[in-house]
């Protein structure tokens, strides 16, 4: 445990992923659920996880500066619409850019209400969600209805993709017109071996059928970490969420920071929305976000308000849905994965002499394993509810480990706090 704590967040993410892969590998050998580590599953996990990741990062930026952002869902909705509109008119990248711009404006609106007018953050967020839903529905009827392929609740198809490719040699990508060998694809099919095909699947999932917006989104994780922890702007943002009085007493303009960070937050959330309407599909559809903004909010908490934590959370929350989508029959194997993880956590907590928690974890593991042997199929609804239940459990069980920004969501007016 000491060793684990000595690692940086980036290293921890890698260590945890490797551990997770090991568990998956064992379960795969045992159940023959080959798809739980196939490159196709990994690749679609990324696609499912990216919008959640972006929404989660939006949450990190907002809460780190001290503003609770319930409006992420609404900002994503705005993103889906403007992404769809831009893609239809000019192409995917224009759609994404337009969405980010529109999202920033919505973020600024949230900042205006909460910073300038001291409105309760949750209330303002709810208002933004209502406003976003109404605006996009209204605009769709004005702009999309009657267009070819468009309708009251759907945009016409976007122009062209945002660029997808396979990596040569590793995933059989093309160099010119020559198709290189697919080394990882070959390895991945050696299903009798332990771990090796799983790692090959993981790697191939990361390098095949990838698109640039996904890479940009993932790159935003270290970028956010860098900006928040290594730059002057980032330090001031974090101080604003921890103790705006401290910054103010030293001449830092808290209000300006909050506008800036909220514009970033809105832009990120809208990017997540645009990803849905330009990368995952090529059209805007009403209700496309389906609550992913709230899952993003959940990952902000689950990820302990850190970018790498949000990344872990989005993968974890995205994985079951991706598997469900790719290989329905393999989903029950996840119950065994959960059982193994719960046992591992149980052992850790037993070492810390937390009897109640240990017992709970072992009972959970037993139930999970028993369910695996009893059911053939995990209902879609359970997969969908997992992120929310996990978040509630984390909040209820591990709150001591969480470090939310101390001042997030509290009323603050510059110059009145001495």
């Amino acid at each position, binding site marked *: 445990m000491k060793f684990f704590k000595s690692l940086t967040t980036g290293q921890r993410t890698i260590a945890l992923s490797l551990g997770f892969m090991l568990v998956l590998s064992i379960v795969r050998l045992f159940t023959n659920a080959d798809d739980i580590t196939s490159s196709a599953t990994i690749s679609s996990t990324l696609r499912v996880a990216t919008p959640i990741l972006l929404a989660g990062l939006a949450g990190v930026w907002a809460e780190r500066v001290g503003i609770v952002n319930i409006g992420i869902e609404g900002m994503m909705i705005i993103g889906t619409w403007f992404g769809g509109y831009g893609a239809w008119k000019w192409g995917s990248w224009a759609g994404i850019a337009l969405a980010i711009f529109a999202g920033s404006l919505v973020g600024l609106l949230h900042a205006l209400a909460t910073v300038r007018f001291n409105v309760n953050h949750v209330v303002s967020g709810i208002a933004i969600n209502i406003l976003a839903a109404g605006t996009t529905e209204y605009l769709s009827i004005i702009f999309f209805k009657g267009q070819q392929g468009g309708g009251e609740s759907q945009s016409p198809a976007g122009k062209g993709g945002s660029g997808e490719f396979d990596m040569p040699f590793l995933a059989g990508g093309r160099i010119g017109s020559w198709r290189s060998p697919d080394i990882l694809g070959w390895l991945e099919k050696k299903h009798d071996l332990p771990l090796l095909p799983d790692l090959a699947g993981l790697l191939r999932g990361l390098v095949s059928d990838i698109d640039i917006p996904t890479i940009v989104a993932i790159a935003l994780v270290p970028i956010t970490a860098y900006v928040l922890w290594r730059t002057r702007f980032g330090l001031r943002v974090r101080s604003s969420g921890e103790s705006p009085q401290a910054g103010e007493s030293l*001449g830092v303009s808290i209000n300006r920071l909050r506008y800036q960070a909220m514009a970033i937050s809105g832009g990120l959330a809208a990017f997540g929305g645009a990803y849905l309407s330009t990368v995952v599909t090529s059209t805007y559809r009403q209700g496309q976000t389906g609550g992913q903004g709230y899952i993003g909010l959940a990952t902000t908490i689950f990820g302990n308000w850190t970018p790498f934590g949000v990344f872990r959370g989005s993968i974890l929350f995205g994985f079951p849905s991706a598997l469900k989508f790719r290989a329905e029959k393999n989903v029950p194997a996840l119950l065994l994965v959960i059982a193994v993880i719960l046992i591992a956590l149980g052992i850790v907590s037993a070492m810390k002499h937390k009897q109640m928690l240990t017992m709970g974890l072992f009972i959970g593991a037993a139930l999970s394993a028993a369910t695996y042997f009893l059911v053939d199929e995990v209902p879609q609804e359970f997969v969908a509810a997992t992120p929310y239940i996990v978040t509630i459990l984390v909040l209820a069980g591990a709150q001591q480990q969480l470090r939310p920004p101390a001042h997030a969501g509290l009323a603050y007016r510059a110059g009145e706090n001495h």
Partner: protein
Amino acid sequence: MTEHSHLGKQLAVELHGITKRFPGVIANHDVELTVRPGTIHAIVGENGAGKSTLMKTLYGMHQPDEGTITVNGNLVQFKTPTDAIAAGIGMVHQHFMLADNLTITENIILGDEPTDNRGRINFKEARARIESLMTSLGATFNPDTNVSELGVGQRQRVEILKVLFRGAKILILDEPTAVLVPQEVDELFTTLKRLVAEGATVIFISHKLDEVLAYCDEITVIRRGTTVAHTTPSQVDRRSLAELMVGSDLPDPSGRETKVGEDVRLQVTGLNLAGTFAGAKLALEDINVAVHSGEIVGIAGVEGNGQFELCESILGLRKILSGSISVCGQELSHTETRDRINMGLSYIPFDRHREGLLLDAPLWENTFLGREENAALTNGPFISRGKIEADCRSIIERFGVLTPSEQVPAFALSGGNQQKLVVGREMASDPKILLAAHPTRGVDVGAQAAIWDELRHARDKGLGVLLISADLEELIGLSDRILVMFDGRVTAQLDPATATPEMLGTYMTGEEQGDAR
């Protein structure tokens, strides 16, 4: 005024004729202050004398209505603290302004970060500068630890570092020792001496006479908003300094008729209360207090020595470890707070804003608070608004609360009137025993006298009062007995007729511990 004719050497700070008014209050008037460079200059005065207001003026947190500020010979006008910082003034606030989840380094450099031209923080440079400042300060912590892991003394050290990091040469410390344990106080002054030796000037706000006399070079006394004396430790002793602060001889309680009754209203025996976290020392240790009818028992002590915890324990707001508490002979162990109140326990809380009032609610709702079981104000499960309003009006009249009506929200009243309202509410139900914590804190002289009269009057009619106060005049003037609390224990019992401020002071600072019974 003596000894500031150091010709040729410029004054570090000179305040002349400073007056600062707030709605309904004159916080400072005609303040004269001269601080020589390279000294530790104490500003002493009672709670509410206007020390903090004055220092906020000097630090640019608000502007004076009249008067001039001169720093190092230059006439200045500070619009914001940033201006004051630029002039080399730094302030260590009484309530620390630190972000717990940031590291020490991050807290120190915030707002003045050494960066490259792309906004990247140069942590190496920051660290080097902080470490050299730490050496001159004698501080030894790892600047990469989170502030949340620091104790109070270390946090104060970080606050000082913050000020020094900005190049401040004139340091204002607002009651820095209020939160420190004695050993930390010594360390703080060692640090301050070191800084002064390196050319800094320290303005030190305090109401603790011991440390002022022991460590400071010069003293300015503030009373009722204005400066009344400028002196040095060699020219005064404790008694005369205390008199300067209070403004007259301490009240003479002799010749008062004691009407202390036979029956015990409040009996606390062998009370122990656990500390706030596992492994911490006891918050209260073997407390024994008895209050009789018609008796005011004063509790003296520096804040944070267990007075708050004692009140909370008596009220049943904290689970006690062992011991017993009874009111009028009835053991309270298994009763809830509400029952205790119904048995005749009443409480004037430490902080009227945090625990005493509903600021946005009208006065009549405020005087009803906590009296929901009073049958005269209710009608079964319903409240009787008319009766409550009438009751509120009678409280307003009896306690001279200045307000247009009982419909006004509580925030509209001045602090003194708010306090009178709270006192009135707590006395209105004719309690058997009253816990009065700082009943006249932040209250003007007129209101103070009115509240004292009411307390005496109720005492004469048989009320038992446990009076917690930091105001020695109040304690000596009202109490029939004075107990001193130090470090969670009752360390002395004194007779107000013979008690002197020195005696109280030595017991309050834990220098000496007497017989508690």
